């Protein structure tokens, strides 16, 4: 099978990229100077949220300090600047994921919001009793629960692609799940709990053979791998700003124009209308049809700045750096007694979920915290994954563009301490 992988897609042809300046990059993130329990912060919880470079913080600040205004509503100068910056941000997102049309980029509050938009607009209008939707075992709750809510309302069926022991999707099982009643496929690009990189190009091709639209949850992928929605040919692609070094409360829904145009608005209010009369209201055009109310203007501007930041470093170089960290940490953890990595997919992003024979993830989290090491512990909003492996929780270290091998050494030493304490 012709795998769609991080490695192949991001072949490190670095002619146009500068060498990795980790020192300079770390200088850009003010929070990395924080001490936690008197120790330097070692932040390895990037899959939950990432820190923000000063460029992003300054851009958000500048909006509020210098040209705060509502958009699309005023003739005055500041409103014009704010509107321009907001629409510039949309253009930045468009080229970041290589969308064909600007109006295919909808600002939302995040991945969760984007998925809910698709489910409640597309799902409610076009799915009916007896139809089925395919998701996977490794979905984040935000790509499970909205579909379950639709199931309650419409009596649709949810089908789940199983994963194997390594955490890879079983592609053949996916193919078997498709039938003439399959009306939507919604899968994650990268699993936040296991790090698995899914062969989304193949999933999309397969689904399209039967004219089934596909949504890709890119919350864990857009900042690790170059996304080209036209190349992928996905019908929807969603992600969050806060996971890619941007602000919280902002996210993106990309949808192919032909889909967005036939979808009804999911929210009513200002900005999404052309004309309102009590007997008839005319909806606005894309993308405003889906952006009711005053949006997160500062968030959109901050997100654009985060994208510029990633582009400036070069995403391929970031991917290579993170891949090195992943391999370095994986090898060291595999050498430790009583520690087991959950998720050994063929293609992984820089996420390592692990469990220890003697210590519960929660105790691991507290012990590491004392050493300044921030990891995530729990079910990672992916309870079906935990159930698949028959574990209540994992500890998860996830690496971002500013992490270093020295930080991984701190992590490893801390895990060794946990082993000693609980053995």
């Amino acid at each position, binding site marked *: 099978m012709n795998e769609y992988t991080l490695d192949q897609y991001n072949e490190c042809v670095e002619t146009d990229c500068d060498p990795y300046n980790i020192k300079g990059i770390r200088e850009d993130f003010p929070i990395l100077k924080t001490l936690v329990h008197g120790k330097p912060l070692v932040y390895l919880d990037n899959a939950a949220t990432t820190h923000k470079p000063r460029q992003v913080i300054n851009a958000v600040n500048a909006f509020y300090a210098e040209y705060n205004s509502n958009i699309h509503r005023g003739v005055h100068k500041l409103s014009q600047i704010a509107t321009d910056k907001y629409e510039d941000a949309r253009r930045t997102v468009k080229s970041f994921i290589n969308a064909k049309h600007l109006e295919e980029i909808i600002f939302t509050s995040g991945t969760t919001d984007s998925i809910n938009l698709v489910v409640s607009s597309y799902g409610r209008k076009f799915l009916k009793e007896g139809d089925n939707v395919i998701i996977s075992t490794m979905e984040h709750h935000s790509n499970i629960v909205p579909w379950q809510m639709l199931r309650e309302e419409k009596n649709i069926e949810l089908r789940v692609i199983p994963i194997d022991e390594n955490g890879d999707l079983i592609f053949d099982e996916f193919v078997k799940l498709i039938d003439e009643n399959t009306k939507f496929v919604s899968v994650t690009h990268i699993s936040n709990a296991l790090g698995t990189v899914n062969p989304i190009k193949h999933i999309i091709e397969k689904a399209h053979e039967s004219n089934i639209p596909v949504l890709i949850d890119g919350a864990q992928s857009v900042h690790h791998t170059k996304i080209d929605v036209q190349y992928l040919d996905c019908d929807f692609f969603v992600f969050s700003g806060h996971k890619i070094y941007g602000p919280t409360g902002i996210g993106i829904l990309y949808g192919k124009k032909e889909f967005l145009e036939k979808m009804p608005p999911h929210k009513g209010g200002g900005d999404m209308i052309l004309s309102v009369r009590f007997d008839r209201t005319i909806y606005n055009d894309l993308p405003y049809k889906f952006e009711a109310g005053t949006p997160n203007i500062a968030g959109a501007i901050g997100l654009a700045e985060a994208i510029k930041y990633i582009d400036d470093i070069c995403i391929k170089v970031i991917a290579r750096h993170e891949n090195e960290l992943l391999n370095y940490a994986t090898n060291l953890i595999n050498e430790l007694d009583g520690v087991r990595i959950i998720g050994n997919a063929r293609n992984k992003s820089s996420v390592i979920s692990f469990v220890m024979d003697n210590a*519960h993830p929660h105790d691991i989290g*507290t*012990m590491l915290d004392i050493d300044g090491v921030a990891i995530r512990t*729990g079910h990672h909003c992916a309870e079906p994954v*935990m159930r698949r492996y028959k574990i*209540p929780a994992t500890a998860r270290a996830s690496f971002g563009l500013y992490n270093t091998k020295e930080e991984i050494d701190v992590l490893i030493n801390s895990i060794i301490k946990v082993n000693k304490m*609980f053995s």
Partner: protein
Amino acid sequence: MNEIQELYQQVILDHNKNPRNFGELPQHSHYAEGHNPLCGDHIDVYLDIENDIIKDLRFVGAGCAISKASASIMTTLLKGKNVAEARELFHEFHKIVTTDIQQNIDELDLGKLAVFCGVREFPARVKCASLAWHTLIQALDNAQNSKN
């Protein structure tokens, strides 16, 4: 003692490794199931109460060291106590894990519960320590809620 040693005292590590009264109690009069959705901790508490006296109690659970040790120590403290005494102990326990760190608790008065003083330093862990106790209270409140 640093804060981590205070949290994971020998007593706690020992109860974690060798929990007392661990297992189901087929002959029980009271039962409740507790769940901490945040970390996936789960516990079943069984009590056999006769004439207001806790004759026996046991627990089954999967959780962190703090939650397991807390459940284990709770069972050792409650056997033979009456229901009012059990509720009184719950209040004491609650006070210990939620009292402001700045405030000194007279540790001498606390007996076995003193080992949980360290939890105050870790607000995120208070729920772990309290799970068994809250489940106990729920079991006492739901007299009808027998598993069988």
